[in-house]
């Protein structure tokens, strides 16, 4: 690899990293504004015009608050918990194809950090690793509520990972590849996977809600039963990292859903627009479209949060094991039958 290539990759990683952080920051603002809209309130409107500087103010508040490590907490692991949560949230973006390759002069720059040929499984691995941040933090707090929250998070994540994996298997039978770059390419020209896998997408989005601990699956931090769940003992930026990780997870899972099922950076009339805009702005317009899809999903996440109440814990487990897993297996069998008949 040339030095220039390395520099470009490095730049791409930094840009993606910054974008995910900024989107996570403004997701907190968007969530409050959307919540306000749903509940017929005004929402944050003091910091800057329309409260646009609210995330900065929150960030400053988080950084300036006192760091408290409880006396009976396991000191090192107490810090490892939130660090692990934010790290696993950030590394998921490495395999997502953000757009077609940009051509500047004779240099082709792929808008994807790395196109490993087990891309989906990598995402899956990162998702399954995400629970450690919550578990370690909850256990190290040495608090019953935190421990219960951590245990709920662990059992919830494991239960919903299974149906998520099964729904992905049906998708893989259609695409025939594990590489996210290729999957995004295949969907060019209205071959969006959601048209072939509607049930698979439904299962995937339900599992994505559960894996990101969003309402109606936010039982790990259920305040009516568990005070604050796994982050009861956390304060200042360590709490901030947990909350931030949730928003980054939401962003990444929206990106994964858009890429896997909703055509990724593809849009109708793409070839025409690509010719019109040229080799640099054409692919970048595709990236813009991908981000519009991602924002739509993030809005959907928030819409659900402020519409549907939380599940009870036994309902959650029933849904995961008795509804989603049989449906996912039925989806695999159905997909297999259809593929065999069409061959």
């Amino acid at each position, binding site marked *: 690899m040339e030095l220039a290539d390395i520099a470009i990759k490095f730049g791409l990683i930094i840009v993606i990293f910054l974008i995910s952080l900024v989107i996570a920051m403004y997701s907190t603002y968007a969530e409050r504004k959307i919540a306000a809209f749903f509940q017929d309130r005004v929402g944050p409107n003091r910091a800057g015009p329309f409260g646009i500087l609210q995330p900065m103010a929150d960030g400053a508040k988080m950084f300036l608050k006192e760091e408290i490590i409880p006396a009976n907490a396991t000191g090192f*692991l107490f810090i490892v918990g939130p660090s692990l949560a934010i790290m696993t949230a950030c590394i998921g973006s490495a395999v997502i194809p953000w757009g077609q390759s940009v051509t500047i002069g004779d240099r082709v720059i792929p808008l994807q950090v790395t196109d*490993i*040929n*087990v891309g989906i*499984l*990598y995402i*899956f*691995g990162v*998702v*399954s*690793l995400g*629970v*450690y941040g919550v*578990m*370690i933090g909850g*256990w190290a707090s040495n608090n019953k509520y935190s*421990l219960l929250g*951590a*245990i709920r998070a*662990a*059992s919830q*994540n*494991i239960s919903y*990972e299974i149906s998520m994996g099964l729904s992905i298997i049906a998708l893989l039978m259609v695409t025939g590849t*594990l590489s996210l770059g290729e999957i995004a390419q295949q969907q060019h020209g209205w071959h969006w996977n959601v048209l072939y896998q509607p049930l698979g997408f439904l299962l995937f989005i339900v599992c994505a809600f559960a894996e990101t601990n969003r309402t109606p699956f936010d039982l790990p931090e259920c305040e009516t039963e568990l005070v604050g769940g796994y982050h009861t003992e956390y304060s200042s930026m360590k709490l901030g990292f947990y909350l931030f990780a949730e928003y980054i997870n939401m962003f990444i899972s929206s990106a994964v859903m858009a890429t896997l099922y909703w055509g990724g950076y593809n849009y109708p009339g793409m070839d025409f627009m690509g010719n019109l805009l040229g080799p640099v702005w054409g692919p970048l317009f595709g990236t813009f479209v991908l981000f519009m899809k991602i924002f739509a999903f993030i809005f959907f996440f928030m819409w659900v949060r402020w519409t549907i109440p939380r599940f009870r814990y036994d309902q959650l487990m029933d849904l995961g094991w008795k509804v989603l897993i049989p449906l996912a297996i039925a989806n695999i069998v159905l997909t297999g039958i259809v593929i065999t008949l069409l061959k």
Partner: protein
Amino acid sequence: MSTFYFIAFLSIFFSILVISAKNPVHSILYLILTFFTFTIHYILMNAQFLAIVNFIVYMGAILVLFLYTLMLINLNKESEPVKPFMVKLAAVFGAGILMVVLVASLKSLGTSQPVVLKNPDLGLVKNLGKVLFNEFLLPFEVSSVLLLSAMVGAVLLATKDTKATI
């Protein structure tokens, strides 16, 4: 090659920490790190699929369950069984003899013959799938039946015996 030695050192280092850590939760966390170094070993051997499956299944699922169980058990110093001195001595003696036997048997075996793969890209998903579903189809299916029977057994153990409660 130096990467291999570094990672191998880390594997052994973390596995020693697994057995020497006082707190069982810490030893599970070291076990997670050990499995992570195994994942790197697989990647170094160009076995991508095995690496990522090791990552998902062992690090992501099995060890979460381990951690889950350990968090529920209250392991205090008071409840820890204290073994008498003679038992400890016998354990050290027995383990030492086992080590002598292992070292002797390994020495008599001589150096292992490294197997050179015909296809260096065997670990990639496509090639692995072809090999599994052609050459090794029967063992593959038999092992899936084995897993199914284990699952049925677990469900059987977990369900309450309705006759006993009446």
